[in-house]
């Protein structure tokens, strides 16, 4: 068990820099999720920690020791791959024991650790099967088992659930999280699924284009997104972003409507409104021309445009909501505390 710190870590492939300097300190036992869109450099960052990619610049420390130059095997880490990367010619038991055998652990200890892991992951009846005789979820567990028998200081996961179906994904998500908190092993978990990130993370790193846009707990990122990107990437459905002119405690929208806000700034800005913070109010200033209602059971998403404009707007209302045949604008209001302001140019949060 150990803490993990990244200090201005950069990665270049030839002349193209794909990670532009990521810094963070991860405490012992923390579960950190790296989340971001495809191609933003999540896997690359994780693979640098694993030692599968060299570090172009900066420093990675595990348990306070610089590991930049260390081989993967000397870093005391274990990794779960997206395609599981099980050894196809070995049984489940041999897959899990492989690392321990190489470390020349006594046979009795190997047997015990494999048996413990198998019990923990409910793999006991499959120990003598080959990977190809297992279902996706079982293979996933074997990959987990191979990681935990080695009792590493740090777990690394690269989208371990993305090959599973939706239901199994939810189940495995809980299992992994529960297992991790039981074992208390520092973990770095890569995903592009923001729901996975929100539900699993102690803290998350929101990445975009090789930059860590925000590092914080899921609630922090949700409640106070530091950049436009983080604001739109986290939360489902995504936050609505509108242009506004701030003046005298009012935010004037593009269609002329003006909202009360607490800011005393007098600038052009982007304001963000989460769909779930819009409340139905016939006298509300935010008028939505509905195009489509998506009933999700517990709530209904209403997609449309801001009245007298072509700006898309989505609202989420509780329960079932049916659009009228020839529907007029629907009025919404929002609590000024729930408004987010971002600099129109840099996209950074304005408080």
């Amino acid at each position, binding site marked *: 068990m150990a803490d993990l710190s990244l200090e201005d870590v950069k990665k270049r492939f030839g002349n193209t820099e794909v990670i532009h300097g990521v810094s963070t300190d991860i405490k012992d036992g923390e579960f950190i999720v790296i989340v971001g869109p495809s191609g933003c450099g999540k896997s690359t960052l994780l693979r640098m920690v*694993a*030692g*599968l990619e060299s570090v172009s610049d900066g420093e990675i420390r595990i348990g306070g020791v610089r590991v930049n130059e260390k*081989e*993967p*095997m000397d870093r005391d*880490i*274990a*990794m779960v*791959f*997206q*395609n599981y*990367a*099980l*050894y*196809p*010619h070995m049984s489940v038991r041999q897959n899990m024991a*492989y*690392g321990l055998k*190489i*470390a020349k652990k006594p046979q009795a200890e190997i047997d015990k650790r494999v048996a413990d892991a198998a019990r923990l992951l409910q793999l006991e009846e499959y120990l003598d099967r*080959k990977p190809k005789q297992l279902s996706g979820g079982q293979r996933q567990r074997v990959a987990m088992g*191979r990681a935990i028998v*080695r009792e590493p200081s740090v777990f690394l996961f690269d989208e371990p659930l993305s090959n599973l179906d939706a239901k199994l994904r939810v189940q495995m998500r809980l299992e992994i999280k529960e297992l991790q908190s039981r074992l208390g092993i520092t973990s770095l978990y890569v995903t592009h699924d923001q729901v996975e990130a929100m539900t699993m993370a102690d803290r998350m790193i929101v990445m975009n284009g090789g930059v860590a846009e925000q590092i914080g707990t899921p609630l922090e990122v949700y409640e106070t997104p530091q950049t436009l990107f983080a604001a739109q990437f986290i939360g489902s459905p995504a936050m609505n972003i509108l242009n506004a002119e701030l003046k005298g405690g009012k935010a004037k929208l593009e269609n002329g409507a003006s909202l009360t806000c607490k800011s005393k700034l007098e600038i052009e800005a982007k304001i963000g409104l989460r769909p779930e913070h819009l409340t139905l109010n016939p006298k509300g200033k935010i008028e939505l021309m509905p195009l489509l209602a998506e009933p999700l059971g517990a709530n209904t998403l209403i997609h449309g445009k801001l009245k007298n404009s072509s700006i898309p707007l989505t609202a989420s209302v509780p329960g079932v909501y049916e659009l009228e045949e020839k529907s007029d604008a629907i009025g919404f209001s929002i609590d000024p505390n729930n408004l987010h302001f971002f600099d129109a140019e840099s996209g950074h949060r304005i408080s």
Partner: protein
Amino acid sequence: MEKRVTFRGWGLPLLLVFPQILISGVFFFYPAAQAIWQSLFIPDPFGLSAQFVGLGNFEFLFSDRFYRSSFITTAVFSTLVTLVSMVPALFLAVLADRLIKGAGTYRTMLIWPYAVAPAVAGVLWLFMFNTRVGVVSWYLAQLAYDWNHVLNDGEAMGLVVVASAWGRISYNFLFFFAALQSVPKSVIEAAAIDGARFWKRFFTIVLPLLSPTTFFLLVVNIVYSFFETFGVIHTITAGGPQQATTILVYKVFSDGFVGQDLGSSAAQSVVLLVVVGALTVIQFKYVEKRVHY
């Protein structure tokens, strides 16, 4: 899902397979039948008549010291050719697999020897090792080693083995290289994280994953060394010295066409037919069981 084409009636399907049946018939079944037939007779020296001897040719064959030793020669020869053509090929493929730049050039250059016909390769090697004018034998003489494959059994065997295996290295290399490239990178990385260093990974992960390819090449190379090395042996040693490099196929030729003992030659062909049949059966049985990990 199995794809099946169904025909109505027999006319068209028979027409379609007819060319293949014709070719097999003319070039395989007819000569094979003829060989089996001839193996039961001893023709007179002028080829005008033949006397039926039943299995006499076979009895004579297996009591022939030279024929039995030819079996051993063949076993030694094909084992060596298979090893010498596969092990370096695998080694080169592993090196090429690690290359990031220039793997293409390297690969192309390694394929060239395959394009050289066996007899030509034989002549090339013969020139290099010619006891009087060969480059290599001259250098060996400088090192005070007296190379003479014309007289020395072991040297003759070594030379035909190397000359036969040389061109096959390219062929085997291609298969090994393709197989190595298809080993998933993440599996290798997982093993690296598990603590296995390069050669450990090679022997515990890569080699087992290559086993289908290795087995395939094993059979193909054994068959090659049995039947397709005639040209090399004919040009380099002509089976000598003292029949030290006379493998079964070469003996069929030398007894039949040189020695004019057609009955014995035919009986030897039949024995070879049985050997090939056995090899094929073993291959199919083994392939079905073992090769899917």
